[in-house]
């Protein structure tokens, strides 16, 4: 090549620009086009090709002088470009890490992957406690308050439970919660007795102990329709004596609502979908093992009353027939979940049926109205399930159909929008994965090329091109995103994600195609630029190096912009949702409403505590 006088001349003229390979090649290409044109003109005038090339080079001027002049002319540009390249080199890795971190809602994914809501894992064994603990910097004691449940405490030895109680000795609410957990699994009567002495005026520990004993004394039928019966009279007698002790104490307090409220205050969940999932997870970790105790004691006290009546001790029997009047108001008043209300309703129904069965007209009449509350609630027209499936979001579709709520498609809009935003969060993560793979692939290609001593260099865009790039790569996707998410009739967002499958899939594909399309356009631009610099086939390393900033910008667009936008949107819709977010006790506002409704209706018929 260098035997060619033109190439030799070009090398001489551009040698001082070697620090900037792009500028050197650009100058070389420009000067080459001149010399070739001059040579061709001279050849056309009749000179031989070699002679024409020599003449063209001679007319071009002194190579040394020209090299100096070109360096002087391009010096400001050279300095600026060197600074830009240095900035790109220094900023690339920090920007890449920042963009990679911002693009993915890590809390969302860690919460989802570790959540027992989305897996079959035992809630007690899930790793979400650790994840949430790390995010919120909870102390071990706070984590115990947040995540201790029946499954967890089942693995504790009595000694460990005593240590646990000691750690929380100034916390009567949590102590009562531990007390309720002891009612599940292996009975621990000695611990319940100790707890009873810790709060002697509260009948709760004795009540739980009575419940455990009563359950052991009962015989539950193997087949539906058969009656529960007493199988161990002595044990039942002891259980009922313990119940008497409990009911004679000044007060009977459980703590489920207080502990649920405290958990939510402690969690202080962020007003986003991830915060709501954390809230659900913590709420699900709340155990209500004492519900079975209330139910069994209602059954057992009536059976014991009937037993005493058979034995001719009618006056004593009356006390047990009416035991529910102390048990159920406690359960009703402290309830915060729908299931607690279902237990209250079921107990009232069974008590009513028992009174009817034994011909106790007075008690049957007394129990008729409270027993009808749950029945009427079940009969009341609920929300239109089809409408929920058509217009609801993920949560509304799962949770609202069994509840009695007055709902319109407009009411479902926040959860529906949040579901689309969850989908977009997932798409962002897919794009993140694709871009990260792209960066790794092209980065490796560039590195290998460098290690092989091939010349790879960064092509810098012209100032004029930057404006076009901003328009194309930033404003166009933004406009597209706004168009697709704001105009309902294009994206069909008045329908649920599942009811809008085709359009949602098309939009997801469009969303995913944008980075691929832009990468293709960028490749084309790099090829074109390299062609002007005299390289017909762009080496893989050169292509890779020049795609890296583009991929990084795409990551910044999705991470620094789209994902944060999505997070903002989530908060906007969560603030407008009236079914799920903002429940002070954990599950959902819709469940709180149903609990409140049933609680008020039951309270009208239950004696005051």
């Amino acid at each position, binding site marked *: 090549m260098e035997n060619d006088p033109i190439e030799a001349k070009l090398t001489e*003229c551009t040698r001082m620009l070697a620090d900037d390979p792009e500028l050197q090649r*650009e*100058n070389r*290409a*420009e*000067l080459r*086009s*001149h010399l*070739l*044109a*001059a040579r061709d*003109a001279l050849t056309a005038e009749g000179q031989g090709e070699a002679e024409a090339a020599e003449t063209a080079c001679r*007319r*071009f*001027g*002194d190579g040394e002088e*020209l090299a100096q*002049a*070109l360096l*002087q*002319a*391009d010096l*400001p*540009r050279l300095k600026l470009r060197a600074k830009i390249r240095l900035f790109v080199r220094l900023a690339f890795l920090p920007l890449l890490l920042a963009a990679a971190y911002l693009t993915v809602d890590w809390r969302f994914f860690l919460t989802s992957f570790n959540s027992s809501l989305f897996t079959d894992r035992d809630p007690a064994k899930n790793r979400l406690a650790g994840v949430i603990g790390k995010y919120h910097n909870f102390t071990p004691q706070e984590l115990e308050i947040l995540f201790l449940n029946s499954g967890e405490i089942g693995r504790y030895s009595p000694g460990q439970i005593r240590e646990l109680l000691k750690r929380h000795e100034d916390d009567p609410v949590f102590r009562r919660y531990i007390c309720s957990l002891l009612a599940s699994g292996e009975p621990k009567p000695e611990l319940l007795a100790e707890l009873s002495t810790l709060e002697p005026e509260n009948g709760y520990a004795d009540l739980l102990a009575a419940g455990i004993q009563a359950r052991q004394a009962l015989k539950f039928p193997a087949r539906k329709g058969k009656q529960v019966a007493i199988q161990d009279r002595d044990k039942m007698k002891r259980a009922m004596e313990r119940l008497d002790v409990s009911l004679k104490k000044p007060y009977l307090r459980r703590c489920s609502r207080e502990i649920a409220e405290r958990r939510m205050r402690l969690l202080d969940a962020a007003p986003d979908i991830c915060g709501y999932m954390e809230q659900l997870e913590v709420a699900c970790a709340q155990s209500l093992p004492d519900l079975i105790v209330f139910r069994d004691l209602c059954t057992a006290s009536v059976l014991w009353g009937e037993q005493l009546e058979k034995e001719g001790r009618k006056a004593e029997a009356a006390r047990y027939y009416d035991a529910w009047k102390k048990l159920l108001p406690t359960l009703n008043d402290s309830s915060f979940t729908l299931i607690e209300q279902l237990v209250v309703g079921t107990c009232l129904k069974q008590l009513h049926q028992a009174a009817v069965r034994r011909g106790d007209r007075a008690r049957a009449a007394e129990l008729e109205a409270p027993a009808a509350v749950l029945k009427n609630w079940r009969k009341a027209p609920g929300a239109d399930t089809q409408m929920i499936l058509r217009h609801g979001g993920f949560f509304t579709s799962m949770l609202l159909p069994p509840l009695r709520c007055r709902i319109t498609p407009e009411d479902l809009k926040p959860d529906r929008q949040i579901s689309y935003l969850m989908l977009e969060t997932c798409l962002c993560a897919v794009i993140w994965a694709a871009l990260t793979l792209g960066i790794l692939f092209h980065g490796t290609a560039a590195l290998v090329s460098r290690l092989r001593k091939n010349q790879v260099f960064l092509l810098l865009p012209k100032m*004029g091109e930057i404006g076009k790039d901003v328009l194309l790569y930033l404003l166009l996707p933004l406009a597209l995103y706004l168009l697709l998410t704001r105009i309902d009739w294009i994206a069909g967002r008045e329908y649920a994600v599942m009811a809008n499958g085709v359009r949602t899939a098309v939009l997801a594909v469009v969303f995913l195609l944008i980075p691929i399309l832009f990468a293709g356009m960028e490749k084309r631009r790099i090829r074109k*630029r390299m*062609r*002007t610099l*005299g390289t017909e086939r762009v080496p893989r390393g050169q292509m890779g190096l020049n795609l890296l900033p583009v991929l990084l910008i795409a990551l910044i667009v999705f991470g620094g912009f789209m994902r944060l936008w999505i997070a903002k949107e989530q908060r906007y819709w969560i603030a407008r949702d009236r079914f799920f977010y903002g429940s002070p006790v954990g599950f959902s506002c819709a469940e709180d409403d149903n609990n409140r409704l049933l609680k008020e209706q039951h309270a009208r018929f239950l004696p005051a505590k």
Partner: protein
Amino acid sequence: MYISSKGAFEPGKQEGKTMIRNSELMKGIAPAVILKLLSERAMYGYEIIRLVNERTNGEFQWKEGALYPCLHKMENEGLLASEWRIVEGKPRKYYALTGTGKELVEEKVNESRTFCTALNQLLCFE
């Protein structure tokens, strides 16, 4: 007579014509020439040289390569904008005037005319 690159007046004739070869002198007038030519249309370097030769009947004996530092300097000053185009399969860098460049054309041309008139008057005084 012609002015050498070292600045001294030296006799120089080619094919019976007096030619301007002084590179410093050429450097001085090149911006005005370039601005004037590019005010007609966008051009590439070789085209500018060819036009200068055509319009001056070869009076300007320009070392052709010297045009490029001048073009680059003017581009860096924001007077010109360049663009690569592929013409007949060959890449060519075209230059065009920017807004600032366009504003400067008349001023530079008038300045050169005034200079030539003054120089002419001075040299023809005796």
